[in-house]
């Protein structure tokens, strides 16, 4: 592995860090390799001396959460969006039922919740849309639990 490959690989392994942060590490290792080479050691050996890129990156990431890019929590976003849609449809029951399929005897199927235990499947005859209310309740509840758990962790 030569210097360029090493620095590229390091950059790749640090992709969770901010750009300027990555650049600092890159400069540091670039300088270090140059300095080692100046003592008469070959480029390849100087790179080898740094150890494995994965190990270095893991150490860097373990060391400081600083400069970390926040990864999007798609699961949380999905839950919130589904909750909002369901709440809105609860507040506008008539329109929703119309959208869902017209007359009172139509059945509505809702598959809700991204979590295993909270997935539900409801198919029922619609008078008062109990299925919708229950689904909304379950999804909103699991969203709240999910968010509370998440923020407690931090």
């Amino acid at each position, binding site marked *: 592995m030569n210097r360029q490959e090493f620095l590229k690989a390091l950059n790749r392994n640090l992709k969770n860090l901010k750009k300027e942060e990555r650049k600092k590490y890159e400069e*540091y290792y670039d*300088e*270090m390799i140059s300095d080692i080479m100046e003592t008469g050691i070959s480029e390849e050996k100087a790179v080898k001396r740094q*150890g494995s890129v994965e190990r270095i990156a893991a150490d860097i990431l373990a060391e400081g959460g600083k400069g970390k890019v926040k990864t999007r929590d798609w699961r949380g976003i999905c839950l919130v969006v589904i909750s909002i849609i369901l709440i809105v449809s609860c507040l506008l029951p008539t329109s929703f039922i119309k959208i869902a399929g017209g007359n009172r005897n139509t059945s509505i199927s809702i598959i809700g919740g991204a979590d295993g235990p909270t997935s539900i499947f409801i198919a029922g005859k619609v008078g008062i849309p109990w299925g919708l209310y229950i689904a909304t309740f379950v999804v909103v509840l699991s969203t709240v639990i999910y968010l509370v758990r998440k923020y407690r962790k931090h």
Partner: protein
Amino acid sequence: MDRQLRKGLLEFCVLTALKEEDSYGYKIIEDISPHIEISESTLYPILRRLEESGKVNSYNTEYHNRIRRYFHITEAGTAALEAFDKDRRELLKVLDYIAGGIEHE
């Protein structure tokens, strides 16, 4: 040496290496490594930590057509080093206690 213990001591080793004059990554490693195990990948997080806590600061200089980053010990860094010297007595007492425990086993 135990990893956690070494990590704590390394901070002071780096400060010591910077006490006489400003220095850069590779030279710091050269100066310290006869005394304690240190590698390129362990040094940088320490420098970052020291810089964040205001014990050192850094500046770039040009050297042989490339950039070299020098580190400089601040007043806070010197103070930390002096404080560590005062802690030495305490540290030695702890070491004696631990050594005593091992002997009596």
